[in-house]
């Protein structure tokens, strides 16, 4: 078990929250939102684990959504949700894997919820076994370890740092990049002990930032929800609640002029990225950077530092906020013209403009 290594100023109370993260042989459970909005992130996560860290991770084509979106929007009943999760685990047992690597924060929260329900109420486990058997004829074992993708990246952040050609240091000034993090709520707020560093002062992203040379900036609304919450954005007249939450975060991080926002949940990533554009359109206010603060997930940042190609491998062109300023600061070589050229070199179209406001220059 790795010993608790607390480097930064927050030094107390974390010993209880240091969770156990598996070492190898992961069964990858994809995220609906991440593979739809930033597919590159998942591809590059697998590549980092297999090629850079030499870990064995299996991406089973038969696994489905965990139905977390439906469950959290009150469409999918909890029983069905348990059966879906059980099916994923049965795929795992079939392949002989014991450790899950979960890509999405909401499913990570959902899996933890299901696992602890089974632990507290064994009869629920039995009922799920029957349902699964009835529905698919499958049986399953409870996995030994459930870790989120960001836990794994956090665990091997030093190994990644060792192989990384780039550092999160501003090339010209030599200053470490100022990076603000946002932890997905379902990561540690439902089960604090399941998150690295608990819910109040979560360490999972700050650990990475500091390992790769950046400076983790703590801003007052750090723990505030990004506003993604399924119910808040699914229905049109709830969306003002969603954007207001993001706005509060942007207001709070603005004085620190962060170079980028690091997230570990696909939903937060997408909304913190898109809402900056929407706020700029409505209020004409840009909260940071030249034309918006770039928002990256932990895999994307890890890949960036490891030297993957921003467009072809990581697929950063899918982001609304321009990432070019960040790339220039780190000094990553990239070809601006290739931003919107497809794998076979064809033009894959582009949005009317990227960033917050249409460029007038």
């Amino acid at each position, binding site marked *: 078990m790795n010993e608790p290594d607390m480097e930064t100023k927050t030094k107390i109370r974390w010993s209880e929250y240091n969770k156990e993260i598996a070492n190898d042989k992961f069964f990858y459970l994809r995220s609906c939102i991440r593979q739809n909005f930033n597919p590159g992130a998942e591809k590059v996560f697998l590549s980092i684990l297999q090629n850079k860290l030499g870990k064995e991770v299996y991406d089973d084509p038969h696994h489905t959504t965990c139905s977390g979106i439906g469950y959290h929007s009150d469409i999918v009943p909890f029983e069905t949700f348990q059966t879906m999760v059980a099916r994923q685990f049965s795929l795992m047992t079939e392949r002989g894997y014991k450790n899950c690597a979960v890509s999405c924060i909401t499913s990570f929260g959902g899996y933890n919820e299901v696992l602890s329900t089974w632990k507290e109420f064994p009869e629920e486990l039995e009922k799920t076994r029957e349902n699964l058997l009835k529905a698919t004829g499958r049986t399953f074992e409870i996995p030994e370890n459930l870790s989120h993708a960001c836990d794994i990246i956090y665990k091997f952040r030093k190994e990644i740092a060792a192989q990384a050609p780039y550092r999160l240091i501003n090339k010209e000034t030599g200053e470490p990049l100022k990076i603000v993090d946002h932890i997905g709520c379902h990561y540690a707020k439902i089960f604090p002990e399941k998150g690295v560093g608990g819910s109040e002062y979560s360490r999972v992203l700050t650990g990475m930032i500091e390992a790769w040379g950046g400076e983790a900036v*703590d801003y007052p*609304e750090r723990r505030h929800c990004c506003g993604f919450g399924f119910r808040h954005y699914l229905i049109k007249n709830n969306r003002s609640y969603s954007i207001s939450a993001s706005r509060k975060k942007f207001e709070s991080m603005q004085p620190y002029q962060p170079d980028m926002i690091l997230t570990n949940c696909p939903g937060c990533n997408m909304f913190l990225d898109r809402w900056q554009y929407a706020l700029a359109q409505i209020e004409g206010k840009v909260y940071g950077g030249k034309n918006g603060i770039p928002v990256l997930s932990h895999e994307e940042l890890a890949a960036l530092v490891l030297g993957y190609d921003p467009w072809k491998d990581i697929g950063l062109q899918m982001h609304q906020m321009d990432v070019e300023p960040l790339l220039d600061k780190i000094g990553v070589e990239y070809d601006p013209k290739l931003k919107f050229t497809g794998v076979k070199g064809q033009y894959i179209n582009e949005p009317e403009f990227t960033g917050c406001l249409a460029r007038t220059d």
Partner: protein
Amino acid sequence: MNNKHVAVIGGGIAGMEAASVLARQGLKVTLIEKQANTGGKLNDWDHLFPDFSSPEVLVNSLATKTKDSGVNTVYNTEISRIERAGKRFELRANQDARFYADAVLVASGFNVFDATIKEEYGYGLFGNVITSVDFEKRMKKHGQLHTIQGTDPKRVAIIHCVGSRDAKVGNTYCSKVCCITGIKQAIEISEMLPDCEVFCFYMDLRLYGSKFDSLYLQAQKRHKIQFIRGRLSEAAERADKSIQIKAEDTLQGRPLRMTVDMVILLVGMEPGASTSQLIQKNQMTVDENGFLKSANVHCARNQSTQEGIFMAGTAICPMAVNETIENARSATTEIIHFFENRRP
């Protein structure tokens, strides 16, 4: 009656008062204090409510009273075990010193709530978040209040009910003395720093004592201290070390955010650590709040559930200084009564 020997555990104001009164009644008294000097918590207190008097004067007078009445005071000794030896008691201390007594008076006092448990208030994480005890220590030592950056605070938030009336930290009782302490400190701050805005965040203001409410009125009227009904939810440090606090203005039913230069947490009283130690080893029982259980809450408040073992002061429940001293005196009458009608 005068060859009886009483052991008083805890050299705080309750212990000192009880010991000196018992000694003057002709009893042989041993006062056992775990620290190097007597006076307990008041040694690092600056001013007392409600009259802003100095605790030093009080402690010194009690100390001289104890010395003059012939009490044998033992320092740096912490009692870990009380054993019944026939009709008498055997007290075992840490350096395996032994004390024998005909009656035991537990006056071990209270513990200050460890505010780090309320992690979301950032005590121990942010330099400018201090507790009311820290405030008293600083005022006693430096006579002024500075932020950790060394500047005069322009805006201070005083948070009531930290560690009291809070199921999350396991203390659901009210510590009674923090509200008035908060108001006292607020007045001290605004007298020291006239152009500093002071806010008190409260759930209910429990100002039970005489002159407490007039102090409250004076705080509002003359010192312009603002009272906001709402419990602090979280504190976060900003780049310039000032603290952003969030609460709800419940009278308006709206969330409220504010940046303050310093946060003072009015920490409550918790059962003393030593009582818990005494409890594990023998039959003394505690009430639902963890304080020592009285035989009868009305008429035998100083008697523990164990015959011959008595209690005084904040070991029983949260008390103000004047109540503690009165309680100590009532304990002595119980003890004397206990000796009188016990046939040799």
